[in-house]
């Protein structure tokens, strides 16, 4: 079949075509035409029917290792390998997390779909006659890119647990009711296809036959192709699942009985269809509308009424995804239609909760070696919270950071999973060690943090360096466990305080910790300690108890955490037996009695005395104990919560190069275009165009001059004046040298064709870039689209 886009009306003899595909030839032709066009523009009309060109390749797969940056860096292959290992591990975690997160709501939803039609048949006939469709409304929240995955998870779960007949209706299928129905039918019949036999009569419904080869074949539509209508679906359903007909044909009394005594009904039915396991219950049809708000209301209305009329023969369950709230359905549908739905609401966990989980389990967990530095962490978090609210995008950004880290930082060779530390360091080759030694971070480490003979050894002795690196890695990993345990404990304490001085989310505390200063120096920390000092006995006791429970899993990982836990536990014990604390109030009272105010004293002496008295005010045993606890905790935190950026060789794990990823993830194309137009000299690096952003130089590219001139105008631009201004700027040099006013004037009136052509090109390029557009409001004017 000839394609319109490949018509070349050229009588050029084709070159030898043995090896090239026809498209390739056409492409070359086209290129040559483009070249010749400059000389001979008449060919133009013949070539403008070409849009795309396909090329068959010889190589099948592109391999990463062929495209590594060309440099002396030899270990980059190993690092790429390492990246893949770590990323696979991470992906596993993410998948697990995702399925865990939705598991509860999915379980509810699935049991609903499984149960709803059973319950239905227990009811009286009247409700059947009305035909209320059981509907699960899944409130998904504003987080679209992730929804596809959620629904496909749900899809597979429903298919495995409830019924094979699950159809996902996407928005793209919903332009008309006919497309919707046909998509529904094709999905349902396609699922059932493997079950039916080759000779089955039902094969004249168009179907995808999976029974044959491994390759997917689509059967050519048979002559008697049925139109996709609901009644055809009903026929098909009755044929495919005859047991359902039996179920519907049983008398209402019997139906009621089967529901009450479901076990018995199974027993009674099994003998009828012993071969088919599914015959125990009616096969439900689940229809998922992923984005119900986006389906056009009329189509949705029609679909729902159709479903409800066929409900007696087709046990349909609807699952609707809603982004906002259930009220949206009532807004879309008139009450006559929405009354056909028997809705049950399910709220999916919001995206922010997902993010919190993700961050807690993956980004801010000691298990994963790769970590984000403060700048990158904030950057990715901001994109999520303020721009897109999409976890998938966050993960993509995270992945990109990982690639960059492994590709550009030679130290990342050591950034591996904890269990590989020793093997990884033991297998470092001499070249790799040399590579590591050359790193500025390593140099800094050797110079400042290692003393004595080790310094020299680290630089020369390979085996010593290997063992030393292993211990450094171990220390870092130890440090991370300590830090995260400490942070979790502190965060837990902070959650009970009014106004949350440490932030509600763990990530807020973590970012304080990342930022480079010690957590104990931060404002929030000081404030929260003060608030803790005011806590009541009961609160403090329960808080400490639950806090210890939280970090108990890290108990054995390091001695510091063990000590923290044992300290806190002893404090809890003392708090519970507060009566046994020594009460100093009696002595105090004696003391105060002895120190009666002197009869006569100077004013400042009296003042001092009073002040000292007030300082020594009475403290209950609990208050003393509380102070002791807080001071003790403070000491612990001081040890535990050092900033990761102060740790030796933290560069192995931390990626903090924001500038290298920012422009690739969150680019501002308009901004860059503007910059290039305003200051071309900065990009071109030429002497002639270096100037302030506001000024115009004749040496600049035409486009820049025209752009800068247009910035001076209002919404409408007079082309003639614009052209004159352009000529004035461009010919500024000549004009100043010739200095003949008259000459200049004539050149203004009658600009050379060359200048005009340059101006025309620049203006049309501005139009192409979207800065201006043509307008009919005034002759020879254009409209400005920016401001």
């Amino acid at each position, binding site marked *: 079949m000839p394609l319109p886009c490949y018509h070349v009306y050229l009588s050029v003899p084709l070159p030898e075509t043995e090896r090239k595909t026809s498209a390739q030839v056409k492409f070359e032709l086209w290129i040559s035409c483009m070249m010749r066009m400059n000389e001979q523009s008449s060919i133009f009309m013949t070539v403008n029917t070409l849009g795309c060109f396909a090329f068959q390749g010889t190589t099948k797969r592109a391999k990463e290792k062929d495209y590594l940056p060309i440099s002396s860096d030899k270990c980059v292959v190993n690092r790429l390998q390492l990246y893949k290992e770590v990323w696979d591990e991470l992906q596993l975690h993410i998948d697990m997390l995702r399925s865990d997160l939705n598991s509860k709501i999915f379980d509810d939803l699935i049991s609903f779909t499984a149960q709803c039609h059973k319950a239905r048949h227990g009811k009286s006939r009247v409700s059947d006659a009305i035909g209320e469709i059981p509907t699960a409304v899944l409130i998904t929240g504003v987080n679209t890119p992730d929804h596809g995955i959620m629904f496909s998870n749900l899809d597979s779960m429903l298919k495995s647990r409830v019924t094979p007949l699950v159809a996902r209706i996407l928005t793209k299928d919903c332009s008309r009711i006919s497309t919707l129905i046909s998509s529904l039918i094709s999905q349902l019949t396609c699922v059932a296809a493997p079950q039916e036999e080759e000779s089955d009569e039902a094969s004249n419904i168009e179907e995808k036959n999976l029974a044959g080869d491994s390759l997917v074949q689509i059967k050519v539509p048979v002559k008697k192709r049925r139109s996709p209508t609901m009644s055809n679906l009903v026929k098909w359903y009755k044929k495919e699942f005859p047991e359902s007909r039996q179920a519907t044909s049983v008398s209402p009394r019997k139906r009621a009985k089967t529901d009450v005594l479901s076990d018995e009904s199974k027993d009674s039915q099994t003998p009828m269809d012993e071969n088919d396991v599914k015959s125990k219950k009616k096969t439900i049809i689940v229809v998922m509308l992923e984005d119900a708000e986006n389906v056009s209301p009329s189509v949705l209305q029609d679909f729902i009424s159709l479903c409800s009329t066929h409900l007696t023969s087709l046990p349909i369950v609807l699952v609707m995804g809603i982004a906002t709230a259930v009220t949206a359905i009532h807004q879309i549908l008139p009450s006559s239609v929405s009354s056909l739905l028997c809705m049950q609401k399910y709220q999916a966990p919001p995206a922010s909760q997902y993010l919190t989980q993700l961050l807690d389990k993956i980004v801010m967990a000691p298990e994963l070696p790769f970590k984000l530095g403060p700048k990158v962490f904030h950057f990715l978090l901001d994109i999520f919270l303020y721009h897109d609210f999409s976890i998938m995008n966050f993960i993509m950004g995270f992945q990109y950071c990982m690639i960059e880290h492994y590709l550009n930082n030679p130290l990342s060779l050591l950034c591996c999973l904890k269990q590989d530390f020793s093997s990884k360091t033991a297998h470092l080759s001499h070249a790799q060690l040399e590579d590591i030694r050359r790193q500025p971070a390593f140099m800094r480490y050797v110079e400042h943090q290692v003393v004595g003979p080790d310094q020299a050894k680290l630089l020369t002795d390979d085996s010593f360096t290997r063992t030393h690196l292993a211990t450094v890695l171990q220390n870092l990993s130890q440090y991370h466990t300590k830090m995260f345990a400490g942070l979790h404990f502190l965060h837990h304490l902070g959650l009970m305080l009014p106004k949350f001085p440490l932030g509600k989310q763990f990530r807020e505390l973590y970012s304080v910790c990342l930022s480079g200063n010690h957590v104990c120096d931060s404002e929030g920390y000081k404030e929260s300690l003060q608030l803790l000092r005011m806590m009541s006995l009961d609160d403090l006791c329960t808080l400490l108890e639950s806090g210890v429970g939280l970090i108990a899993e890290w108990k054995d990982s390091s001695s510091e955490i063990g000590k923290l836990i044992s300290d806190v536990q002893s404090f809890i014990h003392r708090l519970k037996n507060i009566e046994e604390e020594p009460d100093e109030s009696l002595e105090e009272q004696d003391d105060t009695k002895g120190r009666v105010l002197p009869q006569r004293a100077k004013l400042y002496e009296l003042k001092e005395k009073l002040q000292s008295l007030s300082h020594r005010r009475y403290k209950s045993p609990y208050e003393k104990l509380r102070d002791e606890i807080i001071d003790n905790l403070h000491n612990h935190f001081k040890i535990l919560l050092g900033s990761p950026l102060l740790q030796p060789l933290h560069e192995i794990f931390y990626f903090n190069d924001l500038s290298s990823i920012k*422009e690739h993830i969150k*680019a501002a194309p308009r901004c860059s275009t*503007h910059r290039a137009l305003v200051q071309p000299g900065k990009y071109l690096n030429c002497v002639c165009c270096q100037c302030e952003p506001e000024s115009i130089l004749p040496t600049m590219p035409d486009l820049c001059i025209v752009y800068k001139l247009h910035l001076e105008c209002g919404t409408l631009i007079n082309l003639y004046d614009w052209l004159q201004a352009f000529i004035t700027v461009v010919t500024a040099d000549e004009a100043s040298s010739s200095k003949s006013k008259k000459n200049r004037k004539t050149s203004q009136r009658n600009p050379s064709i060359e200048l005009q052509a340059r101006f025309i090109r620049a203006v049309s390029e501005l139009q192409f870039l979207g800065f201006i557009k043509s307008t009919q409001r005034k002759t020879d004017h254009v409209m400005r689209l920016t401001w």
Partner: protein
Amino acid sequence: MISSPAGLISFRVKAEKRYDVFEAQCPETGSSPVGTVYNKDLLYQDLCSFLCVDDSSEEDDDEDLRKTEDRDGFLAGAHMVDSIHTAASAEAYFDLYSQTQVTSNRTLAALQGPRLDVDLVRSVLAKLIPGHAKHCKVLMDKHVTLFNNWMLHMCCGFNILLHGLGSKRDLLEQFREKHLIKFSHLVVNGYFPSLTIKHILNAITEDLMKSSKGFTNTQAQLEYIKKEYINRDEDMFLMIHNIDGILLRSDKCQAILSLLAEIKGFHIIASLDHINAGFLWEQMKYFRFRWLWYETPTFASYGAENFYENSFLVQQSGGLALSSLAHVMRSLTPNARQIFLVLAEYQLENGDSTSYTGMSFQGLYHMCREAFLVNSDLTLQAQLVEFKDHRLLKAKKNFEGVEHLFIPIDMATLKEFLQDYKNHTQSA
């Protein structure tokens, strides 16, 4: 910098207005309500960065700036966000639109000599020696060093998007010759005025997959490609010059492209130039693309891309008219199409004479009636409205007061259109 919340609100309003402008330029965008919201969000984001309302503190940026300069010392200007104080702000918008527009009444007629035609302009420009050739070359060479990076990232599952001033055709062409030539790949000229998404899909199924199947709709075709490529252990590279090209701007096209991007083994490298191109994609599509942006200003003139664009000063070449014609035709009923064809054929036959003023309305009516296309002159009028709205038809009254209709497109374009249309209907 915007500090007050009030400023932000007006800023937001402005952003929405801005969106409408873009919307107006691509009338095809039938965006869903939810999609619109996201589009505006994206736009807001871009404007934020445009106005330097940045999340990171300036200190950070300074530091980063120094770092980048250390790293690749050339693009000194690439990160000068702070140094340029962009004048754009919410107030600027209202300033600009509140004042009445005073422009001079001079027109281009004041220039001596005739208006230039396209060919002349092209030939003149071809002789010009572009300035800064050496510097542009240096800039280009710097971009060439990124090629390996691009391939690597595409292998890792990202797609590459180039932006920045200047035509990126040559750069991409170099990239193609150097790296893609041994793989199956497809070059798409997005700026091309009669490109449709169908062409792209057909090129994939017919030329690359060697399938002779006909497809009734794009969805089925897409499904087919997807299924095939799951089993194939093969990479496929899609190179799109100007993914923001006029005919690719529609929601549907971008949706299909984004779905292509999702297919296993498909990699996309694309360029974009339009300043509002960032709003082509709402969240869903944007995520499917998995773009990594690269700023590659080349300062080269948009020779090929701009080839088909109408210019104000020159006589029209008709490239764009052709595309809009094809567009309008596609959206019409068969009867209306036939009416237009009748008129177009008449014009082709008789249009050569200088005295041709168009086909008289009555004449058209009789011909259409004979062909059972209309049953009264009122229905004919109604059918013609569509063409008049799209400026594909003009009506003039001659000295006798009889209405004459003609298509304001030059003969060559019209001829080509008819030929195209016939081919299309035959193949379809």
